[in-house]
């Protein structure tokens, strides 16, 4: 196990390096100047512009800039935002609480809903509940999040006027704070619930026909005990790994939902940064997302081994 973890870590590090090189390369090769806002400003004389380029290190060759960026990033220095002239790490950290609460709540809701739905649908295969759950799942992952968001706004903000359509971080009253978070959470949760429920159903179906389930029934166990203690425990192994794999996807996917409801999360920051050519911010956020993906992939692999002793690491 220890050697396996070490080997996986050895593979993980180069993956991250390659990804950072790719993103850095794209940004460096892109046509257009990240400092165009200075270039188009007539108040900035040419020598000052050159000085700024020099200060940011933009007059150096790309590989040199990459090495410098990487070294600084590892030390925790993520550079300064061109747009707001504040440290990038501060900008990102400022957004983390909002992101974690909205995305985290959505993911929790999805897990709490999806597992019972998936289990019941599988146990009662081809029943009306199963058909309903399957339809719900198909609708859930065929509805693009931006359309679900717009629909919810149309129904609950425009038509009924119950919920605010814009997320406001200045809100202090707990009731209001919950109210404004309902729709973004619902949009994110719907999509996740659909795919997780579908996956849980398939996994339970794989296990329900196992010999050990027949044995459990044969020795006279009550049906709830068979399902909860025997079937569910085995069925959840792949589901738990999928949950770990999906978490970073939820974070990156939240970009769209944040845009609809104006939630000031990391995704919204990324969109603004891309639109203002704020290279250091774009680079840092993309790379943080990449780290999330890689780490959770690793976590999923390790979890699989911990939860399923049948898997031998070689």
């Amino acid at each position: 196990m220890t050697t396996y973890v070490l080997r996986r870590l050895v593979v993980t590090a180069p993956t991250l390096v390659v990804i950072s090189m790719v993103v850095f390369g794209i940004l460096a090769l892109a046509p257009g100047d990240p400092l165009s806002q200075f270039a188009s400003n007539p108040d900035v004389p040419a020598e000052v512009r050159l000085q700024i380029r020099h200060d940011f290190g933009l007059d150096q060759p790309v590989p040199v800039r990459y090495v410098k960026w990487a070294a600084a990033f590892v030390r925790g220095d993520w550079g300064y935002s061109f747009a707001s002239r504040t440290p990038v790490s501060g900008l990102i950290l400022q957004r983390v609480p909002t992101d974690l609460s909205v995305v985290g709540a959505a993911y929790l809701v999805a897990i709490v809903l999806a597992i019972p739905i998936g289990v019941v649908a599988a146990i009662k295969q081809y029943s009306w509940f199963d058909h309903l759950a399957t339809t719900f799942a198909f609708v859930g992952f065929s509805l693009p999040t931006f359309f679900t968001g717009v629909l919810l706004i149309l129904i609950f903000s425009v038509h009924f006027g119950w919920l605010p359509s814009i997320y406001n971080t200045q809100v202090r009253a707990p009731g209001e704070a919950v109210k404004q978070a309902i729709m973004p959470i619902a949009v994110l949760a719907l999509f996740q619930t659909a795919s997780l429920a579908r996956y849980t159903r398939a996994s339970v179906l794989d296990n329900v026909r196992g010999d050990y389930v027949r044995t459990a029934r044969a020795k006279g166990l009550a049906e709830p005990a068979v399902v909860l203690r025997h079937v569910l425990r085995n069925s959840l192994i792949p589901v738990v790994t999928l949950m770990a794999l999906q978490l970073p996807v939820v974070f990156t996917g939240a970009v769209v939902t944040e845009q609809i409801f104006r939630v000031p999360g990391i995704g919204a920051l990324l969109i603004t940064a891309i639109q203002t050519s704020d290279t250091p911010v774009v680079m840092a956020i993309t790379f943080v997302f990449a780290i999330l993906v890689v780490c959770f992939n690793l976590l999923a692999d390790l979890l699989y081994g911990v939860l399923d002793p049948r898997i031998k690491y070689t």
Partner: protein
Amino acid sequence: MAVRTRTLATAVSAPVRTGALTAQRHRTLWGDVRQRFLRHRLAAAGAVAFLLLVLATLLGPLVYHVRIQDVDFAAATSPPALAHPFGTDDLGQDILARALWGGRISIAVGLAAMLIAITLGTLIGSIAGFFGHMADTLLMRLTDVFISIPQLPLLLLIIYLFRDALTKRIGTGAGIFLLLVGVIGGLNWMSTARLVRAGFLSTREKEFVVAARCIGAPAVRQITRHILPNVVSPVIVAGTLAIGSAIIAESTLSFLGLGFPPDVPTWGRMLFDAQNYLTIAPWMAIFPGLLIFLAVLSINYVGDGLRDALDPQLVV
């Protein structure tokens, strides 16, 4: 004389052929697949719905002669009525006409991106699975890297950075189309590559492939003639589902304002434009959104049906 012999020949062979048919129903691999697919009612309905959508977007503009760029401020944001079945947008443009045009583009992006993803995935998976060793290690590491890349941020980034340069060189519509299709396809080949590689690993050492190798079939012939036909099923399913996800990807980018320019209506772009008029003209958002939903839902059902139909372990 020639005519006579032919009638004679058919006269003789016809009863023989029908006899064979009644004795043993003629079955083929793809016939079975089709039968199993049609038995999956929702999948069949999905296929019909998607074909209807494609036909509507192809033929609709020929029948429904409203021009998409006609600006008419007097009729701006008018609700669905006989003159404008889907209503009009903030500029008084007809939404049905724009939705039909937009459908062409959205579906074309979906199909083209799918083709790129499937081609790349099959190519990479075949090479890795067939040659193994160094090629396999290298290509699978590459696949791992691509899987770890956060998709949406990279899509946004590439499109934002390269849109202007590319459109300057080859024109607005074509430039963005190529960019979108290339980037969406180029970031979606990984699952296909893994499936194809797994299929190659299990098929490569089967007797019929070894036999082909022994009589001196070159690598390309072994791959295309003997192995690929046996690993094509999961690729078909993955390809079908890839159309849906590509349509969603294109709409997402357009919805964030990073897709086609405003004068090219796509479903996502129309939703983007509708955002500011939700209170006064909800139909601007509902119709394009429903079309995206319908297209993706029908594709997902088709994919599900194909997965069952192509699974040889399920009996008819």
